[in-house]
């Protein structure tokens, strides 16, 4: 058995790593936040509190998994599985290192965008089926936010696609092989993708769909037990996915000197995960209408101009 794209070993280890990393992020996030806020954070269970995740998992698995009698059963049960499935499927086109990946798809970038747009159903169905006004408000916000930010997310990476000349994520990494990372010519695209990524995975500061202070917990108000756990881990999976995508699209993927490729990928992706956690600690939540206005009036024109300028430069240098 050895690592090659699509081998059972490759698929199995990616699946396991991604899920374990997403679960461990619960602990990482709490420790990092407390570091920046001059607290201690969870440090009791195991060395450095590392086993906190295990304790949390045991708790979440043994909790009562309650479906409210007034909820719509089919969509209530379906909603949390959707987010897990679409994000895990998105990882199938991500090239982690030479030979490590699930599939080399010629439509990789489009596939990720398709999965991101299907992810909106998770929050919408979750909120709608709960038959609860806070949940409904949360999912209304989530739907509008995700549909809007999907647009800029797609347009912002078209510059990279044009530069690399391919929708294949592995070829996009290989196009940056000479050390010319796409973050330099596509800095605006990178910033827009970063912001849209935070909004897509509805993390703080854009966690308006689940703002505790206004609407209890938003779309997952009625969820408990493992169904809530899936929403929770799904959010961290989304964080890992966005960080991996930024690494692949703008920061040369696994490329780097001395260290093995997979280590470089892990280092770059962890940098962005830590950055997203820092964003959460540093920036307050905007108001909902501010978020939408900002998206449509600032990010959309900016991403269109970026795309047009990139296209013009590519055409003029040919």
């Amino acid at each position, binding site marked *: 058995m050895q690592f090659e794209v699509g081998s059972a070993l490759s698929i199995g280890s990616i699946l396991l790593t991604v899920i374990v990393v997403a679960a461990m992020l619960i602990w990482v996030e709490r420790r990092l936040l407390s570091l920046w806020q001059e607290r201690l954070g969870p440090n009791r269970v195991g060395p450095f509190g590392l086993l906190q995740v295990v304790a949390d998992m045991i708790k979440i698995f043994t909790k009562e998994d309650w479906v409210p009698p007034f909820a719509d059963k089919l*969509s209530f049960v379906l909603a949390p599985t959707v987010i897990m499935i679409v994000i895990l499927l998105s990882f199938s086109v991500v090239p982690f290192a030479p030979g490590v990946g699930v599939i080399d798809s010629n439509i990789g970038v489009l596939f990720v965008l*398709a999965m991101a*747009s299907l992810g909106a159903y998770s929050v919408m169905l979750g909120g709608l089926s709960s038959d609860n006004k806070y949940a409904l408000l949360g999912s*209304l916000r989530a*739907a509008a936010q995700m*549909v809007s930010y*999907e647009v800029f997310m797609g347009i912002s990476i078209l510059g990279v696609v044009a530069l690399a000349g391919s929708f294949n994520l592995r070829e996009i990494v290989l196009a940056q092989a000479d050390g010319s990372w796409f973050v330099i010519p596509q800095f605006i695209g990178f910033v827009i993708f970063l912001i849209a990524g935070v909004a897509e995975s509805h993390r703080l500061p854009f966690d308006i769909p689940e703002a505790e202070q206004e609407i209890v917990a938003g779309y997952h108000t009625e969820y408990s037990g493992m169904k809530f756990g899936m929403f929770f881990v799904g959010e961290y999976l989304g964080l890992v996915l966005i960080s991996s995508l930024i690494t692949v699209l703008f920061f040369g993927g696994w490329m780097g000197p001395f260290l093995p490729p997979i280590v470089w990928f892990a280092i770059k992706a962890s940098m962005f995960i830590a950055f997203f956690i820092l964003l959460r600690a540093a920036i307050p939540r905007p108001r909902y209408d501010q978020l939408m206005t900002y998206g449509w009036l600032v990010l959309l024109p900016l991403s269109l101009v970026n795309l047009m300028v990139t296209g013009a430069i590519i055409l003029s240098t040919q």
Partner: protein
Amino acid sequence: MIVLFYLAAGIALISTICVILQSNIVHALIYLILSLLAVAIIFFLLGAPFAAVLEAIVYAGAIMVLFLFVIMMLNMGQHSVDQEKSWAGPRVFIVPALMATILLAQFLNVLSDYSFDLVPTEIGVMQVSSLLFGPYVLAVELASILLLAGLVSAYHLAKK
């Protein structure tokens, strides 16, 4: 390959029938999304990955989200399910079933003249786009003008 095709086709057929028969509108919508995704898989198997992924992004990912968005705004409860049930009695299905049978007969008649030994060749994004912006550029531009008109009129109507 052929097994996947029949699986996707079966899912598309059954879920489309479920869309028609379902009286709960949210469930009907979920079946419709399932049907669209199955059609996307069929596109992919026939060698059109770009069409497949656009089907998933545009139809399943954007238009259906807007449908669901509208449904969330309308207060659909048990009463709408009951109303739908009272409307969709067996008598309603007579004429549509008749017309569907005629269509199916025509379809089978046309298909029976073809031989089925074609091997799907993959048409990539590059080939599709060079066709779209080559010989078909006029159609693309016309579609964009239509969309722009729609956008402007939607803005105007929403402002009132």
